[in-house]
């Protein structure tokens, strides 16, 4: 018993000698402020961005006004059980797609958008958007959004449209 008493007395005295009573508050405060400040560092923000090509965005992906939808003609997958990047369950994404550019209001840059259709179920019917910027008549087939882009899929039945960022536009000199 004597050994335990001595041991803990020594440890307690050592602790009392080497630390101040407020050091606990100081350290706790440091941790709190520090963890709040780390996300503000540029390194953390760059890591958060992941892919450098992926734009920072704002707005409602369930609204036709969302920046990526500048040339869309169809139902938003975002309202049909998918997102602007993914198809709803039970549908297949068309590998053949129509491609345009949209200006991201957050950074003012133009991005290349691929409007891959999701196919295999009847029309979704929700959030019909027809902004059609840059849409060309069907004799310019690769720049026309009026044709059914469910090509190369098992089924040619159109369900909804995604709007995937595939690159950054090169501005004309």
């Amino acid at each position, binding site marked *: 018993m004597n050994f335990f008493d001595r041991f803990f007395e020594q440890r307690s005295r050592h602790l009392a000698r080497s630390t101040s009573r407020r050091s606990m508050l100081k350290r706790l405060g440091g941790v709190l402020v520090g963890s709040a400040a780390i996300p503000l560092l540029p390194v953390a923000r760059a890591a958060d961005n992941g892919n450098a090509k992926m734009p920072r965005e704002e707005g409602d992906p369930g609204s036709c006004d969302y920046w990526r939808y500048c040339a869309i003609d169809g139902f938003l997958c975002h309202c049909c059980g998918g997102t602007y990047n993914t198809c709803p369950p039970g549908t297949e994404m068309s*590998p*053949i797609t*129509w491609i345009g550019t949209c200006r991201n209001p957050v950074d003012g840059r133009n991005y*290349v958008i691929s409007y891959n259709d999701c196919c295999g179920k009847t029309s979704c019917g929700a959030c019909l958007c027809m902004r059609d910027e840059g849409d060309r008549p069907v004799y310019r087939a*690769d720049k026309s959004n009026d044709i059914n882009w469910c090509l*190369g899929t098992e089924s040619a039945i159109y369900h909804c449209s995604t709007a995937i960022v*595939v*690159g950054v536009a*090169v501005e004309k000199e």
Partner: protein
Amino acid sequence: MIKVVVAALLSVFVLTAGAEEVNAQRAHYNYMLYCQGCHTPEGLGIDSVPRIKGHVGNFLRLQEGREYLVRVPGSAGSVLNDAQLAEVLNWMILEYGEDSIPADFHPYTETEVAQLRQDPLLEVEDHRRRLMEQLRNSKE
């Protein structure tokens, strides 16, 4: 001294003015915008869309094949101008050609493309079939 500088500047100008210069970023952008929708991001193609990756360079083994790549509707009828089209074609060959690129490959020039696209193909599939046969025979 001034003469040397002028000569150096001129040579730089002549080199950069050549149509076979490939600005990879610009070429990739034009590929994304005007080709990728059907040829897919990796140039793999699907169904009736022919595969580019690892294959496109085979056409360059014959003069007719070299002409084919410019005369197909997607190239000849493209909204790209002659210089841009030459650049995208050269970029596609270098990016996706892999082992199919012949050793003596020389890039398309703006004038070559301008001339070839005046004669676009109407019966692409028949033409392609004949061409593939010629390419197979030339290999043996």
